[in-house]
C-alpha cells in the first residue's frame, strides 16, 4: 500500500519527521517498507497485515498516525444529501439476499459527462501506482483508496430491464470483465444479473457490458458489503485479485458504505456534473453499529506485565478513536468503530494499548514459574543426535542438508517407482515433486557434484524420509546415510561398529552397507536405531587375575564366514573372554584369544585343554587344521 505524505496531511497534522514516523508506524504494526521522495512529496510504502483491511485506505493510515501523534482525525467532506430533494426519478429493481450480500448501498445519477479526470485527481492516482481511466472510474477508485470501501459505477442504460439480481453462480457461466478478459465462473460466486446476463462479479470485477465509457450518461453507483469467504473462494479459483477483492476478503467497513457513497457523489457532481435521480438504496438486514468491548485493567496488567496508569490507557484508546468510558472501578468500556473488524475480544484491546504504549518501552523479565521436569510429548534428544553426528565427523565425514523434495528422474535413476512414492499436487517445478523415500538419492548426487573439485569425498546426512505408497500409509522416519569414495567396506563397517558401540547396540551393521561403483554407501533408520539403544552402561570391575592371551592360526576354507568361526570358538568355554579376528593370509586366518578366569589364576594346563577343545571343534565343523 502506497501513501503520499501530502494526501495523509489532509486528514491529520503530522509533526514527526518522515524517518521517525516510519519507524514509529512499524512499531505499532504498520510495517514501513520504504520511504521515497517524489518531487516535493514523500511516498510511504506499507506492508498491511491481513487483519487490518482498514489500513488499505489513506484515512486508515491517517488514523494510525493520529494515534501516534495524539491528534484528532479530520474526516473528509461528503455530499449533504439531507438538503437535496429528488426532482425526477429513474426506476431500478434490486433483489438481493443478505446471506450473500450483507449490504447493498447505491444511487442513480443522470446527465453526467464522462471525460478525462482533472489534473489533481490524475496526479494523486499516478502517485500511488494507479492508471487514470476516466473521471467516473477514477473517482470511484479515489474514494475507495481514500476511505477503504470499494465502489463500482454501472452504466445505468445498459442494465437491461432496469433490474439487478444478486445471486450465486451455478458454475460455468461466462463473464467478461471491464478490462475485456473473459472468464468461466466457478460455482457459488456472487454475481449481479440484469434481465439477460451477468453484469458484475461482486467484490472482484465489474462487467464489460455495463462499464462506464465515453457515451455513458447515467450511472448507478454501488457500494456493497460482501461476504469475505465467498469473495475469497471465487477470487482464488479464478486466480483473479483486485484491490476490491483484497479488501472484501479481509472484511470491509460495513458501516462505511453510505459515507463512501456520499463522498463519491460529491466528486461526481463537481467533476462530471449531472443530478441525483433516486433515493439512496441501502438494503441490509442489520444496522452495522459500533460494538462494545470491555477492558479489565487487572487483566491488562496481568497480560502485559506492567501497570499502565489509567489515564494513559484512556488517552491511548481515545487517540485510537476507540471511545473509552469507565464503567466499573477497574473496567473500561470501549466502542469499536465498524472499520475495526479485527477487534473482537479483550486481548485485542490489550494489544491496542500495548502497541501505542510502545513495545520498546516495556521492561524485560524472565519467566518465573516451574521448569517442567518430564520430557515433553514428541521429545527429541538433540544431545544424542549431536553425538551421533560427531562420530561421523571424527571419521572424516562432512554433513550435508538436502531438499526433501526430489524429481521423478531422481526416483527412476534409483529404481524407485514414482507411483508408489508420496507426491505433491502443486510442485513449484518438476524438479521438486516427490517426497524422498531415501536419503541416498541426494547423497549420491552430492558425491558427483563434488567430484570435479575433490578426490576424497566423505559425506553424510541425518534427515527425514517419507514412506508409504499412498497418504493412508504415511510414515516419516529419520535416516542416517553416508557415502564415501575413499573408505572400504571394513572401514565403513568399523565406523558403524563404533557408532553402535557408543549407543550400546549389539548388532552387526553389515546389512546396511552397500558397495556401489562410485564407492560405498550405507543407510539406516535412525528412528529404529534410537529404539534399539540399551539402557545406560554399567561398570564392570577390571579383572583381579591376569588373563592368558594367545594367537591361534588355522587353515580353513575361505568360504567360511569369520563370524561363524569366532562364534564356534567362543562357545567352547566360558573362560574364553574374547575372540577377535586378527588377519587373513591365503586360507590361513589368525584369531586373537583372551582367556580369563574371574575367580582365580588360570593355569597353562587349563588353557591347553580348552585349546584342544577348540581345535577339535573347528576340525569337526569347518574341516579346519592348525596352521
Amino acid at each position, binding site marked *: 500500500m502506497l501513501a503520499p505524505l501530502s494526501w495523509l496531511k489532509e486528514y491529520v497534522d503530522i509533526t514527526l519527521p518522515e524517518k521517525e514516523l516510519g519507524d514509529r508506524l*512499524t*512499531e505499532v*504494526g504498520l510495517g514501513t517498507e520504504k520511504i521515497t521522495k517524489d518531487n516535493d512529496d514523500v511516498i510511504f510504502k506499507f506492508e498491511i497485515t*491481513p*487483519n*487490518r483491511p482498514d489500513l488499505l485506505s489513506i484515512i486508515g493510515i491517517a488514523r494510525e498516525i493520529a494515534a501516534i501523534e495524539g491528534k484528532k482525525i479530520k474526516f473528509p467532506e461528503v455530499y449533504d444529501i439531507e438538503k437535496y430533494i429528488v426532482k425526477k426519478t429513474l426506476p431500478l429493481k434490486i433483489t438481493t439476499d443478505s446471506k450473500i450480500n450483507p449490504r447493498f448501498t447505491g444511487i442513480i445519477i443522470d446527465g453526467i459527462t464522462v471525460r478525462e479526470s482533472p489534473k489533481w485527481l490524475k496526479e494523486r492516482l499516478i502517485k500511488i501506482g494507479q492508471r487514470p481511466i476516466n473521471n467516473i472510474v477514477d473517482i470511484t477508485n479515489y474514494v475507495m483508496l481514500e476511505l477503504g470501501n470499494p465502489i463500482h459505477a454501472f452504466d445505468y442504460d445498459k442494465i437491461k430491464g432496469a433490474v439487478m439480481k444478486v445471486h450465486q453462480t451455478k458454475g460455468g457461466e461466462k463473464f467478461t470483465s471491464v478490462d475485456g478478459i473473459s472468464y468461466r465462473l466457478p460455482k457459488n460466486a456472487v454475481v449481479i444479473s440484469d434481465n439477460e446476463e451477468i453484469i458484475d462479479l461482486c467484490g472482484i470485477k465489474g462487467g464489460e457490458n455495463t462499464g462506464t465509457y465515453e457515451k455513458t450518461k447515467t450511472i448507478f453507483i454501488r457500494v456493497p458489503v460482501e461476504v*469475505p469467504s465467498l469473495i475469497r*473462494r471465487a477470487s482464488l479459483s479464478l486466480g483473479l485479485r483486485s484491490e476490491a477483492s*483484497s479488501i472484501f*476478503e479481509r472484511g470491509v467497513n460495513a458501516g462505511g458504505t453510505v459515507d463512501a457513497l456520499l463522498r463519491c457523489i460529491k466528486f461526481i457532481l463537481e467533476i462530471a456534473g449531472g443530478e441525483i435521480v433516486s433515493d439512496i438504496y441501502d438494503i441490509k438486514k442489520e444496522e452495522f453499529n459500533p460494538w462494545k468491548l470491555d477492558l479489565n485493567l487487572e487483566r491488562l496488567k*496481568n497480560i*502485559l*506485565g506492567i501497570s499502565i496508569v489509567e489515564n494513559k490507557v484512556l488517552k491511548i484508546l481515545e487517540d485510537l478513536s476507540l471511545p473509552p468510558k469507565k464503567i466499573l472501578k477497574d473496567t473500561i468500556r470501549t466502542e469499536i468503530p465498524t472499520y475495526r473488524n479485527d477487534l473482537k475480544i479483550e*486481548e485485542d484491546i*490489550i*494489544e491496542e494499548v*500495548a*502497541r501505542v504504549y510502545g*513495545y*520498546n518501552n516495556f521492561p*524485560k*523479565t*524472565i*519467566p*518465573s*514459574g*516451574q*521448569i*517442567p521436569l518430564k520430557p*515433553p*510429548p*514428541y521429545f*527429541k*534428544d538433540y544431545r544424542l543426535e*549431536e553425538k551421533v553426528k560427531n562420530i561421523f*565427523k*571424527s*571419521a*572424516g565425514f*562432512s*554433513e*550435508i*542438508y*538436502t*531438499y*526433501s523434495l526430489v524429481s521423478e528422474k531422481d526416483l527412476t535413476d534409483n529404481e524407485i517407482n514414482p507411483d508408489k512414492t*508420496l*507426491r*505433491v*499436487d502443486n510442485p*513449484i517445478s518438476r524438479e*521438486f515433486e516427490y*517426497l524422498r523415500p531415501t536419503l541416498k538419492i541426494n547423497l549420491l548426487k552430492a558425491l558427483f*557434484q*563434488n567430484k570435479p*573439485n575433490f578426490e576424497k569425498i*566423505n559425506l553424510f546426512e541425518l534427515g527425514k524420509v*517419507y514412506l508409504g505408497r*499412498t*497418504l493412508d500409509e504415511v510414515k516419516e522416519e529419520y535416516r542416517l546415510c553416508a557415502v564415501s569414495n575413499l573408505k572400504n567396506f571394513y572401514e565403513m563397517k568399523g565406523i558403524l561398529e563404533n557408532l553402535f558401540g557408543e549407543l550400546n547396540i549389539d548388532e552387526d551393521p553389515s546389512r546396511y552397507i552397500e558397495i556401489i561403483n562410485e564407492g560405498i554407501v550405507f543407510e539406516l533408520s535412525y528412528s529404529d536405531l534410537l529404539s534399539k539403544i540399551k539402557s545406560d552402561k554399567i561398570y564392570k570391575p577390571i579383572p583381579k587375575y591376569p588373563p592368558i592371551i594367545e594367537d591361534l592360526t588355522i587353515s580353513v576354507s575361505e568360504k567360511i564366514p569369520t563370524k561363524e568361526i569366532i562364534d564356534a570358538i567362543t562357545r567352547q568355554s566360558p573362560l574364553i573372554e574374547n575372540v577377535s579376528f586378527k588377519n587373513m593370509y591365503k586360507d590361513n586366518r589368525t584369531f586373537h584369544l583372551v582367556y580369563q578366569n574371574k575367580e582365580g589364576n588360570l593355569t597353562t594346563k587349563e588353557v591347553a585343554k580348552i585349546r584342544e577343545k577348540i581345535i577339535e571343534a573347528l576340525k569337526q565343523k569347518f574341516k579346519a587344521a592348525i596352521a
Partner: protein
Amino acid sequence: MEEELIQIKNSAVSLILEIKDQKELEELKIRFLGRGGRLTLAIKEIPKLPLEKRPNIGRLANEVKKSIEDTISSQEYTLSETKTKKIREEIDRTEPGIKPNVGHLHPLSQVLYDVVDVFKSLGFQAADGPQVETDYYNFEALNIPKDHPARDTQQTFYLDTRNSKVEPGEIILRTQTSAMQVRIMEKTKPPVRVIIPGKNFRYEQVDASHGFEFWHCEGFLVDTNVKLTDLFGTLDYVLRKLMGENTKLKFATTNFPFVEPGVDTYIQCTVCKGKARLPNGQGCSFCQMSGWSEIMPAGMIHPNVLKTAGYDPKKVSGFAFAIGLSRLVTLRYQMDDLRLLTNPDLRILEQF
C-alpha cells in the same frame, strides 16, 4: 667367587658406560643379565658354595646385579635424552602439521545445537513432529480457518491424495513449526516449555532470501501468569546469547491469527552493523538496506488456540515464537544466499 663377582661388575659397568646406542646396550644386557649371561651363571654357582659363605656372597651378588641394572637404566635415560634432543633440534616448526581426516558439521547443525543449548538454560526441552501435517494442526487449530486471508502469507504444498481415503487439501507439508503447538498442548498439562526446531515447506519461488524448504525453531511456554514482558525478556536473552551480548533488538507489532498481542522481533543487521550500507558504499543486501533483519515473529498465545488445545485461557497464558533458523545461520556467517545451506559443495562445508 667374590673377586669374580667384582670383576663382572667392573667390566659390565665400564662396558655399559662406553656404549653408543640402544643396540649395544641390549647386547650387554643379555651378555651379563640374560639367561646365559655371566652374572646369571655366576649366581647359579652360589648354591655349590659352603653354607657359611653363601649369605655374604649372595648379598654381594645382589649388589652387583643392582649396580649393573642401575647403570643400564641411567644409560637408557641418557640415550633417550640424546635422541629427544636430536629430534628437538631437527624439527622444522614452520612446516604444516599432518591433520587427521576429520569432517565438518553443517553450519545449520552448529547453530541449531547452540539454539537448543540456550533454551535449555531457560528450562525449554526440544520436541519434533511430522512434516506431512494435517490442515487442522497447521492452520485451523491455530485460529486460521479455511477462508482466512492469512493463508496467503503461507502458500501451501498439498499432497496428492490419489488412491487414498484422504480428502484433497487435508494433508499438506507443514508451512510452520507452530503446527506443533496444539499437538503438544493436547498431550500435556501446563507448565509447558518446549522448542520445536524443524523444516517447513512453502510454495515459494526460490531466490537468495526465499526457499521452498527452510528451517524454523518454534518455541512456546504456557503457565499461570505468563506476561508479555516475559516474552520480551526471553527473546532478548536468547538472541543476545546467540548473536552476541551487544546485539541490538527492537520489537514491533504484527499480526498472526494465533497470537494476541503479536510481536515481531528485529535484530540489527550483523553485516552492515545497522548502517544499511557496506564500508565500500554499496547498499547492504542482507537487510535490504534497512539496517534491521526480521528474525523472530512471536506473541502471546491467542485464547482461541489455548481453548482448542483444551486449556482454560482464564487460568493459564503463554507466549510463542518462531526463530528463522536458516536466516539466523546466514546472518551469523554472513552468507548472502539461503541456497548455500542446501548446497552440498565441500568447498562451502569445509569452512565450518
